[in-house]
């Protein structure tokens, strides 16, 4: 209780979730968009997905630090870094989902006289939803990780409380904040997993 009030954990949690949801919103938007665009333009696909892959290999702290001169310190670079990391799993899964729809479905849709656009949005897209949801689940984990790191560059959130704990060598703060962050992460992952399973049940695997 002492730790909870002295480290303002209620406020920190709200800051944390705010950054998380803003970042996720844009990641999903951009990820699905890039996924659809790469599906429509196959030549682009390899180069776009490969360059996103390179971003993924950059250590998260290094990426955050590199964004500092461009976006200042605090919330800005944290959200941008989260988005940069989270686009790849969503875009890649969208692309894979759209490309791997069984032939029969497409042939039936063609036979019914659906246009290319209708095939994409009414057949391919719904059938890729389970995979896209899987990508979003990975993105939730990535975003949670980067947002926690944001505490190191003055973005607030629960990472700030963790850093305080380490600097003050205050075991209580570290244990309580660490366990709380872990719990939130596991719960969010569980919710994302449930959504993925709902789509799987609805649209096949």
């Amino acid at each position: 209780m002492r730790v909870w009030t002295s480290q303002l954990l209620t406020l920190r949690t709200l800051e944390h979730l705010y950054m998380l949801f803003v970042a996720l919103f844009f990641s999903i938007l951009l990820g699905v968009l890039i996924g659809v665009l790469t599906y429509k333009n196959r030549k682009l696909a390899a180069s776009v997905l490969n360059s996103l892959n390179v971003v993924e290999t950059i250590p998260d702290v290094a990426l955050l630090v590199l964004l500092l001169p461009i976006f200042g310190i605090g919330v800005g670079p944290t959200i941008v870094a989260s988005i940069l990391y989270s686009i790849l799993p969503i875009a890649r899964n969208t692309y894979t989902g759209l490309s791997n729809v069984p032939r029969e479905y497409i042939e039936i849709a063609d036979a019914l006289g659906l246009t290319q656009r209708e095939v994409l949005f009414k057949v391919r897209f719904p059938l890729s939803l389970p995979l896209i949801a899987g990508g979003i689940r990975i993105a939730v984990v990535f975003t949670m990780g980067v947002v926690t790191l944001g505490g190191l560059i003055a973005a607030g959130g629960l990472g700030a409380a963790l850093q305080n704990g380490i600097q003050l060598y205050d075991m209580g703060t570290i244990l309580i904040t660490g366990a709380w962050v872990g719990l939130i992460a596991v719960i969010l992952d569980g919710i994302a997993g449930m959504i993925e399973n709902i789509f799987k049940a609805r649209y096949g695997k």
Partner: protein
Amino acid sequence: MILTGEVLQATLEHLLLAYAALAAGILVAAPLIFFSLYSAKLASLIMKFSNLVQAIPSFAVVALVVPLIGIGFTPAVIAIMLRVLLPIIKNTYIGLFNVDPALIESSKGIGLSEFQIIRHVRLPNAYPAIFAGIKFAAILANSIAVLTALIGGGGLGSIIFEGLTNFNTTKVLAGTLPVIGIALFLDFSFSRIEHWLTPEYLQK
């Protein structure tokens, strides 16, 4: 230019930290995987636990090591090891169990023992997946080794964080660029080795 020596030393420290942890991770993962080959219950337990732990942010794992184990080089190695363990186990497991059932049946048909099937059928089929797991783990180890500078692990992270607190951009870059260089080098070299290790009949 005084920085060059410092950066060089930090880079060596960084590599030592990350790879001591990776090696420890592989050593711990191997028996776990070996036992789970013989017990489906243990295997599913390990997988469930791995998935759960993987959701927890690295920073929280690194921080939690402090009250539980302490600060310094060894706790840093343990923190990184805990983190890289999961992708290795998960990928090996997926590789070993996603073998075409027909292949296993026909191996039984020609009279191979359980051990021979693991040795000559399951393992070669799992190489690409195992390797992908180790590649991911290596890149992850590099990334978390930066963070463990906060708990006294040393390495390039300590240069980055020192630069951050003093608003010293040169210093920040002197720490950041080698870290990124290592990451890109790992990605490239592992992809080459992966290609080289994959049995011909599995290459696309």
